[in-house]
Structure formats: structure tokens, C-alpha cells
């Protein structure tokens, strides 16, 4: 029987997974847009985005637009690879669960 894959714990967190999935569909996204899409609080969202940033899955850019601060997040190549691997592992685990 083939060995079942481990799920990446950084990606597995519910909010982090939601964030990576959202960021995979766009070029870059503002903090407020991510908050609106996930319905999360500022504190939790900031903490989870920081974890993704520390893992190298998300890159952050801070700038001023019309004198207002804007924080933009985008998915890195490593982040995209991690999400792809996670989805493959998830499917493999689910397939094993259905067969088993």
C-alpha cells in the first residue's frame, strides 16, 4: 500500500487556505479586499498573512495611493507550488479514504 502524503500544516489552516486560494486567482489583493472576502477580523487576518509571509508563500508590498496607505499581497511561486501540492495530497488522501 502506498504511503499517504502529509498535509502541509501552514497551508492546512482554514483561513490561510482560504487566503491562498483567493490569492491564486488574482495578481495582487488589498488587505481590505481579503478581509471582505474571508469575513475575518483585522487581527486574525494580519496574523495569518504574516505566517504565510514567513513561509515565503505570500509577498507583501506597502505603498501610498492618494496619500492613503495601501497593503498589497500577492502569491509567490513557492506559495502556488505549496497550494498545488496541498490539493494533490488532499485528493490522494480522500481517494484513499473512499477506497479504504
Amino acid at each position, binding site marked *: 500500500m502506498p504511503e499517504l502524503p502529509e498535509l502541509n500544516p501552514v497551508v*492546512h489552516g*482554514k*483561513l490561510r*487556505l*482560504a487566503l491562498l*486560494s*483567493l*490569492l*491564486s*486567482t*488574482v*495578481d*495582487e*489583493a*488589498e488587505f*481590505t*479586499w481579503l478581509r*471582505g*472576502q*474571508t*469575513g*475575518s*477580523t483585522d487581527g*486574525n*487576518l494580519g496574523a495569518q498573512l504574516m505566517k504565510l509571509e514567513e513561509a515565503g508563500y505570500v509577498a507583501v508590498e506597502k505603498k501610498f*495611493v492618494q496619500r492613503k496607505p*495601501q497593503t498589497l499581497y500577492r502569491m509567490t511561486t513557492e506559495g502556488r507550488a505549496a*497550494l498545488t501540492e496541498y*490539493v494533490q495530497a*488532499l*485528493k490522494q*488522501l*480522500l481517494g*484513499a*479514504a473512499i477506497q*479504504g
Partner: protein
Amino acid sequence: MDAMETQELKDRLALIEQMMHAGRRSTESWGWTFVLWGVAYFIAIGWSALGAAMYAWPVTMTAAGIVTGVVLARRKHKPNTTMSRAMGGIWIALGVSMMTAFPALGISGRLLDPHIFITMACAMLGMANGAAGIVLKWRLQIASACVWWVAGVVACFGSETQALVVFMVAIFFCQIVFGIVCMMAEAKGKKGGSYA
């Protein structure tokens, strides 16, 4: 693996699909532009009928362009997707084509036959809607393109009044009605959820 763990994994997979769908959908809120431009076409036609044909179209189209630009600039930042760029490209190209071809024909005095204006406008709008509909795999927009193309062909035959009526019917269905349907679909799709 027990049933609870399996359910949790299924939930994670569903969450990925839901978020990806939400990310793509969030950039799609263009219904109002169809309604705005449809109303602008009607105003231009009505104004032309009152005898100011020389100014009606350039002024109305410029005003509609300014309103569109201002509303888009004031809108909250929305992220770009490959799809939104493709859609933007189609409509910007249409706008540039119309804003260059028609004034040039008008100023040079070669836009004397209204049938030509209506057929060209219908063909251009049909092309843009057709391209967008094919990219989005959206039958309603492809149907809208077909209405524009048919209107363009029909407008070549019959009197000027008949051609104008055909043009107005196409504007009503392909701009006003289509725009309202888009806006309703967009409003329906904006349902929230929390993943905190």
C-alpha cells in the same frame, strides 16, 4: 481515517473551490456600464432627432466615457485577474475603435448614410459581445452578440426609420435588459461567509 477526518478534508477541498470562485467573481461587476451606455445611446438618438445630430453623438459619448472613467476611478481597488484583463482589453479596444472611426467618418463628411453608421456600430458591438461571451463561455452574451449582428444586417435594408427602430430595439435588449440581468446576477452572487 475516520468519517470526521474525511469530512474535514472534503470541507477543505470545497473551501478552495469556493474561494477561487469568489476571487474570480469579485472582479465581475460591469452590468451598470451596459445600462449607462444603453441610456447614452438613447439620449444621443433622441437628441439627434431634435436636429442636433452634429453634436449629439460626440457630446453624449464623451459624457458617458467621462462618467464611466470617474466611477471606475472612485471604485475601491479590485484585484486584476487574467480574465478581467482580457475583458478590459476587449471593451477598451471597442471604445477606441468607435471613438476614432465614427468621428473621423463624420468630420470627413463620409458618414452621410445612417445605415452605414448603424451597421458599423452593431457589427462592432456584436464583435465585442461575441468575443467576451466566448471567453466567458456565457450563452446570454453570445446571444446578445447575435442580436447585434442580426440588427446590423437588417439595418442595411429598409428605410432610415426602420433601421433606426432596429438599432433601438437592439440597444434596449443588448444594453439595458442585458445590463440589468448582469446587475441582478452580480447582486445575487455577493453572499458573504466567514473563514476566520
